[in-house]
């Protein structure tokens, strides 16, 4: 079978992107920079983490979705590294099924990295979405939970109030907005930091302005800035983890974006009157033929 026209174009696109991924521009060029030149968002998150007391209890509300998780995964892993290195203990809870699956995987990864069980706790899945969050305020410990983190939560009342911070990891189903509305209003003194995919940025930015969120990383560039700041200290990776699991290759991102600009531009030019373009015939005519 021989590829022609569109097939060749897609193959070429794949090849270009593959080259971009393989040739990691972070080490080959100073002309590219994925990290946001304005580090304010990254700095806000790091300052919030730095203000945590020694051996702080941090609740990680893991509700990302599988579709957009790839975008925020490097940022989240950097944040978990950052918190653990600062001496925090992490308790994971999810109110979505996909979030629960991802939380289980991340907990396993942390254990594989050598993180002690004494600083990790799996609070599991809580059904009921927003209603479940409200119930967590009063009691977050599942039956049979044990260990130092569980003891510390129990000593603090057993609910979310026992934590010194909440790290909100959002996705399509349940996002940080729900946590701010349901939990933040009940525990206004509890700092909340959100990591979310880019599409949630306009929705979450107002909460940062009002102070309901102490920090927000909701774009790839802000995530890259933060990850670089953490990596500058030291970054822990599993031996079989790809190096590129950190912020994505800026060359690949640039190539993809340039291709997008080219394709969109071509469509736009083609739509202008008097210019030949790729615009197809009306769908009705297509069906008739």
């Amino acid at each position: 079978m021989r590829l022609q026209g569109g097939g060749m174009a897609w193959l070429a696109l794949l090849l270009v992107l593959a080259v971009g991924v393989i040739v990691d521009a972070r080490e080959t060029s100073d002309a590219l920079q994925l990290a946001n030149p304005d580090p304010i968002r990254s700095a806000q998150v790091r300052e919030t983490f730095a203000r945590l007391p020694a051996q702080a209890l941090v609740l990680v509300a893991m509700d990302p979705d599988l579709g957009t998780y790839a975008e925020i995964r490097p940022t989240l892993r950097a944040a978990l590294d950052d918190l653990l290195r600062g001496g925090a203990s992490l308790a994971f809870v999810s109110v979505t099924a996909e979030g629960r699956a991802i939380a289980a995987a991340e907990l396993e990864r942390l254990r594989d990295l050598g993180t002690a069980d004494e600083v990790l706790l799996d609070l599991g899945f809580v059904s009921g979405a927003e209603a479940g969050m409200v119930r967590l305020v009063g009691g977050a410990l599942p039956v049979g939970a044990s260990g130092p983190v569980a003891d510390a939560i129990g000593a603090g009342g057993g609910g979310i109030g026992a934590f010194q911070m909440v790290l909100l990891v959002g996705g399509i189903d349940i996002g940080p907005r729900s946590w701010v509305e349901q939990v933040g209003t009940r525990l206004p003194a509890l700092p909340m930091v959100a990591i979310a995919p880019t599409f949630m940025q306009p929705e979450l930015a107002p909460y940062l302005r009002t102070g309901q969120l102490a920090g927000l990383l909701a774009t790839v560039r802000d995530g890259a800035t933060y990850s670089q700041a953490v990596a500058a200290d030291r970054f822990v990776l599993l031996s079989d983890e790809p190096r590129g699991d950190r912020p994505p290759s800026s060359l690949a991102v640039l190539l993809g974006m340039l291709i997008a600009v080219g394709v969109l531009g071509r469509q736009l030019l083609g739509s202008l009157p008097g210019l030949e373009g790729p615009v197809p015939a009306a769908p009705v005519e297509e069906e008739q033929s």
Partner: protein
Amino acid sequence: MRRSLPAALVVVVGLILLLDFVLINPTVAGLADALLELIVLLAAAAAVAGGVALVLRHWTDVVERRRDPPGSLVLLGGFGLMLLAGLYPGSGGAGGPAVRWLVAALLAPLVAALVGMLFVFLLVATRRGLVLRPRQTTVMLVAALAAIVLLLPISGGAGTWLASAAGWANEVPIGGVFRGLLIGVAIVTAVHAARVLVAIDGADD
């Protein structure tokens, strides 16, 4: 009467939860806790019922060879595989190694690939959009192009300027429009809910 019963239930439950939010009263707190527990149980039951209904529907499709039997078979197979991996004796449930492998090796890449295809689907849609609604689609394409150009990952002075322009675009026009939409949706929802509660409209039970 049929119309007013669900509305009355919603009003009563809503008022109790609202009272619990603004008052510190053990009786109200206990009542609100019980209601929340009931809601959580209802949500869990609804999820199980949804799963059962999905299986029955696709099982029927396979048996009666309706709609898309191969697709239904794949869905049933995936459903069964995940249940098996999570429920076999000694399994750790959602945190069990088999479930984690299925999620990490199959589910996550598949869903991420589907989301990654959004750009391709968007392109196909814009081709049709340019035929059907050329002006609106052109505006959308120009906005998309501008957003992409502002986010180009380049360094130096140009990169800094683009990044600050992107920040401004996020904060001002995009943020403003989005917040306006959210406020509008909230107002419409509140008005509609109030109309349903006072039985002016809605409630087509």
